[in-house]
Each structure stands twice: as structure tokens, then as C-alpha cells.
């Protein structure tokens, strides 16, 4: 139980450190960095490697943005297995993505509740 927290911290930290290296060493903008990580997450799930990472690190793998690529791919693959090629399109948002729906809903509510504070980078 305690170890899961340790693994979540380490794995989550490593993914963020990779993001920082892409920004500093690779000279990518934050937008390019996040897009790259999402694509990496999608590819890892395609190779069947992301699920084991979630089992190992829990939120250390589900909280970083890589999990967004993973869950999109996961839905696409699960549906493609059942319904063939068309499933790749129809299944994509099946598992996903509480991240998107939550961001849209809370973004809308936030816009109603809060005043601008110069948050946009």
C-alpha cells in the first residue's frame, strides 16, 4: 500500500522530468512537449506497455498527460477487436476521457465563477 505511493511519486516524477528535459535540452515549447508525451503514451499502449505501468505505479502513470494518449488508444483497440476497423474510430472516446469532459465542464464553470487573473501563459 505504502509502496504504491512511492512508485507513484517516482514514476510520475520521472515522466515530468522527461518533459522538463524535452523543454530545456530539446528546446521544445510546452505545447510541443505535451503533444510529444501524448503521442508516446499512445504508442506505449499500442505495444501493450502502458497497462503494466499503471498496475505498477497507479496514479504515477494515470495522472501524467501520457495516460491521455493511452486511454484514447485503449478505447480504439478494444473496439477494433470487437468490431474491426471502424472500431478504431468509434471506440476512441469510449474509455476516455474523463480528462476532457472534466476540463470542459470545469472550464465552463470556472469561467462563470472566476475573474481573469492573467493566467494564460
Amino acid at each position: 500500500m505504502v509502496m504504491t505511493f512511492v512508485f507513484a511519486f517516482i514514476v510520475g516524477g520521472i515522466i515530468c522530468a522527461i518533459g522538463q528535459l524535452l523543454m530545456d535540452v530539446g528546446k521544445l515549447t510546452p505545447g510541443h512537449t505535451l503533444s510529444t508525451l501524448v503521442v508516446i503514451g499512445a504508442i506505449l499502449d499500442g505495444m501493450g506497455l502502458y497497462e503494466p505501468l499503471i498496475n505498477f505505479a497507479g496514479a504515477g502513470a494515470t495522472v501524467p498527460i501520457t495516460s491521455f494518449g493511452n486511454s484514447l488508444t485503449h478505447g480504439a483497440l478494444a473496439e477494433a477487436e470487437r468490431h474491426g476497423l471502424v472500431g478504431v474510430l468509434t471506440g476512441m472516446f469510449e474509455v476516455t476521457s474523463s480528462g476532457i469532459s472534466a476540463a470542459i465542464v470545469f472550464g465552463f464553470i470556472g469561467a462563470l465563477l472566476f475573474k481573469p487573473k492573467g493566467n494564460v501563459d
Partner: protein
Amino acid sequence: MEKEQYHQLEQNVTPKPPYFKNVAKAFFVGGLICTIGQAVSLFYIIFFNFTEETAGNPTVATMVFFAMILTGFGLYKKIGQFAGAGSAVPVTGFGNAVISAAIEHRSEGLVLGVGGNIFKLAGSVVLFGVVSAFFVGLIKYILVTLGVVSW
């Protein structure tokens, strides 16, 4: 001055970022956010019968909710100035990008302002996530059809 030369000069003049310090800060803050996420996951596993794998979805939604509160009070930007990728890479950073764009454009109206700009910053993440998932799915489908791999 040629473009190449200018680029060279720019590289020489720009101070090198403190690589180690930045990576350490990103690791620590990113790790901390994921540890908080793990506590949220555990909450859903214990009280709502989720498994380690399915707990990811409600956890992500809850983390985005936290991001809304922090963004609304202008605190997420302050964390970001310290943590860099440490606060940008977790899903709270994605939430912050969406929510801050929504709040910032509220004055232009709900439809054209909030609706038109909500994905201004985070749109590329959605685009590349969906497109890469499509191609990964397509490639895997072809490989399975050819009998190279199985589902």
C-alpha cells in the same frame, strides 16, 4: 547577418538553463502531484469499488477539479513558474490550460469567447492524442489481420 549566423549568435548569448535544478524541481513537484493523485485513486478504490486500472478515470476528473480551484485563484501559474514541466505534464496542467483559457476569454461572451477559445492552448494535446491513437489503432489492426501480433 545570415540567418545561420544569427542563430549561432543567439545560442551563444542565451544563458544555458540550469538543467539539473529544473529537472529536480519538475521531478519533485510532478511526483508530488501524482502522489496526491494516488491518494485520490485509493479513495475511489476503497469507497467506490474501482480497481487500480479503472480508478484512473475518476482520479483524472478529480485532479482537473483541483486544477480549476487553483487556476481560479491564480495559484496554478505560481506553481508553474517554480515547477516547469512538473506542473505542466500532469493532467492538472492540461486542466489549467483549458480552464485558464476559458476564464481569460469570458469577457468576449460565452459562445465566441469561452466556447471559441477554451481549447486554444490544450487543443494540440487533444489533436495529437486522437490522431496518434487512430494511427496506432490502424497499425495494430493491420498487424493483427496479417497475423503478426494478436490483440
